[in-house]
């Protein structure tokens, strides 16, 4: 017969894995846990901590988060894949999100996207430029429709971006 295996126990996947939840990050997580009556509620904040520390969230990281919060890796993966801001693979040093939903679209947002793809050298949506510095994606509504076109570069929210402004922005973040 098959044996019950504790699904929460991550399987070893090589030894070069650097756990995220150590030292200060672990302390921050403990602080976050005080805000909620369940450990599971700290899942989104914990994933943010992983992304902050590592840039993206690998399957192994999901297993670590699961272990720390008493969840299963599969459960964590289901949640990670629901939220579009969690990266499931590495992205460029500068991650550009251009809103192209209708209110911005009608104001020329797709031209802004094209300008970013061209000036960053990323070429294709979601692809990272050869120098590893840029990844450009289209996103759905950033909630700043009156300031078309809003663009998120990493954590910087930039309003009223036009194709003409793009070269300057690309230089600034380089």
């Amino acid at each position, binding site marked *: 017969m098959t044996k019950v295996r504790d699904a929460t126990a991550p399987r070893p996947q090589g030894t070069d894995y650097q756990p995220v939840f150590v030292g200060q990050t672990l302390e921050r997580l403990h602080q976050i846990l005080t805000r909620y009556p369940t450990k599971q509620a700290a899942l989104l904040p914990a994933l943010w901590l992983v992304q902050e520390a590592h840039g993206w969230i690998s399957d192994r990281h999901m297993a670590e988060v699961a272990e720390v*919060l008493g969840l299963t890796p599969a459960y964590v993966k289901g949640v990670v894949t629901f*939220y579009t801001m969690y990266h499931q693979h590495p992205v460029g040093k500068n991650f550009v999100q251009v809103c192209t939903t*209708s209110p911005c679209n009608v104001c020329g947002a797709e031209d802004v996207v094209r300008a970013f793809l061209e000036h960053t050298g990323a070429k294709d949506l979601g692809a990272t430029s050869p120098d590893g510095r840029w990844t450009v994606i289209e996103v759905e509504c950033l909630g700043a*429709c*009156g300031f*078309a076109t809003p663009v998120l570069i990493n954590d910087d929210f930039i309003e009223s971006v036009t194709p003409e402004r793009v070269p300057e922005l690309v230089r600034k973040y380089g």
Partner: protein
Amino acid sequence: MGYPHKPHPKETPVLSRYFGEADARSYKGWVKRGGYEAWEQARTMAPAAITELVKESGLRGRGGAGFPTGLKWSFMPREKKAPHYLCVNADESEPGTFKDREILRWTPHQLLEGTAIAARAIQAEVAYIYIRGEFTEPWAVMEQALAEAERAGVFGDLKIYLHRGAGAYICGEETALMNSIEGKRGNPRIKPPFPAAAGLFGMPTTINNVETLAAVPHIVKRGAAWYKAMSLASPKSTGTKLFSVCGQVAKPGNYEVVMGFPLKDLLYELCGGMRPGRTLKAVIPGGSSVPILTREEAETTLLDYEGCAEKGTMLGSGGVIVFDDSADLVYQIMRLAQFYAHESCAQCTQCREGTAWTTKILRRILAGQGKPSDLDLLLDLADNMTGKTICVLSDSCAAPVVSGIKKFRNEFEDYIAGRKRPVAAA
């Protein structure tokens, strides 16, 4: 960063009064402006009395549904047997809407004060402010304001926490938001149970929109009668409302006017009309989820819950999306359908499959491969997607499609008949 416009004389800046004043963001600056007086006043009131006052004011939820706020609060158990929670919905993500963002980043304490008062009214000891993940700047502002207010000991035993979303439109739906706080996929829950019976962590919960709560301190301070008196048309719609005007208009931005304000005046006077050489074609008045209005309809619409309903649309969140005569409505409707297809949580069949199929049909029409029967198919599909799912995301996808085909059928037919050059959808 700067607030783009000085209030127009026809505006009634209550919530937006301090937009643009950087000093208003600090605790000191807020107190200097009379901040937290309403909270101090509310602390002397019985919870039921606060609820009664808000009921009396006629304040209705500003997130989209327009449910009477005081009534919602009154659904919470009077006798507290378990923890009560307040959720603040700062997941503003309805296309066309960007009013909460301004409240968060200019007047964080206005929201915190409203949050504290509401928490007292519903006897909640914990409030979570759920801020969408993309709102990096509002998050930073709120975090600092909360820290300052806490240092000043403003809230007593009440705990207020910020919770960051991670990219999901549907988390603006109230039960999806609760699931998201609980560390789950942001799936809307079947109701009943309603949040007041079993909400966040299964406990009695009230959830309010940012703008709704921002209005509460003003009502406490200046009275229900004052608020209720602000009404230009239907007495069922009271107070001021922030309208986020965007799209193809001369001066987009947030405009605060009294309920019942004519949409025509908002567009042509406050927003400076169309861009040079352009004429108005269509308006979506309440965020992307509501039916489109034609120019004629828009120019005679009064902006309140009833005025919009009269035109077969909804006030929604007050996100006014403007299209001028250069807009390709087929393309824009496709783009909206694509938005909903992207954001569907995947639970309900009609939504998961219907939003995606709708998008595909629209893309094909744009590509010049549409068939005359596609329009009936879209309408039939939309009917199948309306009123049949857990939440209204699928209805929201259907609304612009149905109203678009009904009111601008010729634009679709031009593509189908080959009278218009096909466009490749990006």
